[in-house]
């Protein structure tokens, strides 16, 4: 067998059970298996200056992600995709409450990147009912900014969510967002601003984005789902979005775009979020995450 370098790399990755379920680009930027700890995933804290009271309420509600064995009251620990632990993001038990986990990086080349991860979601199982419409949404986002020497000084924030339910209606639709709230200064030093990009308004349906995911038949059993999202940092455009067996048309997709900010050059943040549709905690679980790039 005659293998070139890329063929050899691909063969080695496919022989590795942990990586074989991913299709990474040549360079793996991060491979986060939560059996090794939090892997740099932390809570998204809102901006503030002088007082924590200046933090927008949408951010003030956020709390720390957990390492979870998907512990259930009725059959014990579910376990993660291939080990004991998954990253858990939990909302508070108040309709519309959100929580976000974030990983903060920078990029060294403006080119194609690929985010792949496995996820599942459930509400807190405090009733003996299916509860399939208690989680409002789960989703992910990038928070990106061009380099300090680039001509196109932009901050770009691609957002995608799975709107599972809204006001009790089972929606099961992928959505995107191209607008954030007004960017407002915080404090008195003219150094910090804030905006709420996860505000409930301005989500738009992804064309053809209705998808029925496996939810299972009681409120504690879960099944893991695969997502792949390709993005080009050079053109700042999404090029591929897939969940399980479905690949979605991105012709109508767009991102939040706002002027570059003074301290965020080459930023490459990625985040996962969850939102509840009832006064019940909503849980997003992720295991694992592979971020790769073509460089």
């Amino acid at each position, binding site marked *: 067998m005659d293998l070139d370098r890329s063929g050899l790399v691909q063969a080695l990755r496919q022989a590795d059970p942990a990586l074989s379920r991913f299709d990474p680009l040549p360079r793996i930027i991060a491979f986060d298996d939560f059996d090794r*700890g939090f892997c740099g995933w932390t809570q998204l804290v809102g901006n503030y200056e002088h007082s924590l009271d200046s933090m927008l309420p949408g951010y003030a509600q956020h709390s720390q992600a957990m*390492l979870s064995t998907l*512990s259930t009251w009725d059959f014990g620990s579910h376990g993660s995709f291939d080990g004991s632990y998954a990253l858990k993001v939990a909302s508070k038990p108040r309709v519309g409450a959100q929580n976000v986990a974030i990983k903060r990086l920078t990029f060294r080349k403006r080119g194609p990147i690929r985010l792949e991860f496995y996820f599942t979601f459930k509400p807190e199982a405090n009733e003996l009912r299916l509860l399939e419409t208690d989680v409002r949404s789960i989703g992910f986002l990038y928070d990106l900014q061009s380099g300090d020497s680039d001509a196109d000084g932009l901050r770009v924030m691609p957002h995608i969510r799975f709107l599972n339910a809204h006001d009790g209606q089972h929606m099961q639709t992928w959505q995107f967002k191209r607008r954030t709230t007004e960017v407002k200064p915080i404090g008195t030093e003219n150094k910090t601003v804030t905006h709420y990009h996860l505000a409930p308004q301005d989500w738009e349906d992804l064309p053809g984005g209705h998808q029925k995911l496996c939810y299972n038949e009681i409120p504690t059993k879960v099944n893991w789902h695969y997502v792949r999202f390709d993005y080009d940092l050079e053109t700042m455009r999404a090029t591929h979005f897939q969940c399980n067996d479905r690949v979605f048309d991105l012709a109508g997709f767009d991102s939040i775009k706002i002027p570059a900010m003074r301290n965020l050059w080459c930023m490459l943040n990625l985040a996962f979020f969850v939102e509840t549709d009832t006064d019940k905690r909503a849980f997003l679980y992720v295991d694992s995450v592979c971020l790769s790039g073509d460089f």
Partner: protein
Amino acid sequence: MIRESQTAVIARNERWSGQAATEPYEAGWASEAVIFIRALADAQGAGGTARVEISPDGMRWVPEGATFPLPVSKDEVTFARVAHFGNWLRVSSELPDGAALTVLVTFHLKA
């Protein structure tokens, strides 16, 4: 392998009065925890008591046994050390009528 360690901010700038409790936190990977409560401002009224609670499922809570005073003056910190807590952990508090406290609660967990 180095021991896993994590600082988790469980409640930030939350105003407590009467009965209060932090959100459930899963930390089955950790064998020990130190729980700190910091007063972000001077408390209103008399001080109160915090107690550590554990749970079989994150929904039904029982006292772990550790109790400690809530801080009273701005930036005062109180704490408790716990081990053998299983998976679920939270801290609850009780303040007398008319009392209130704004807190920062952190769990310091170690495998």
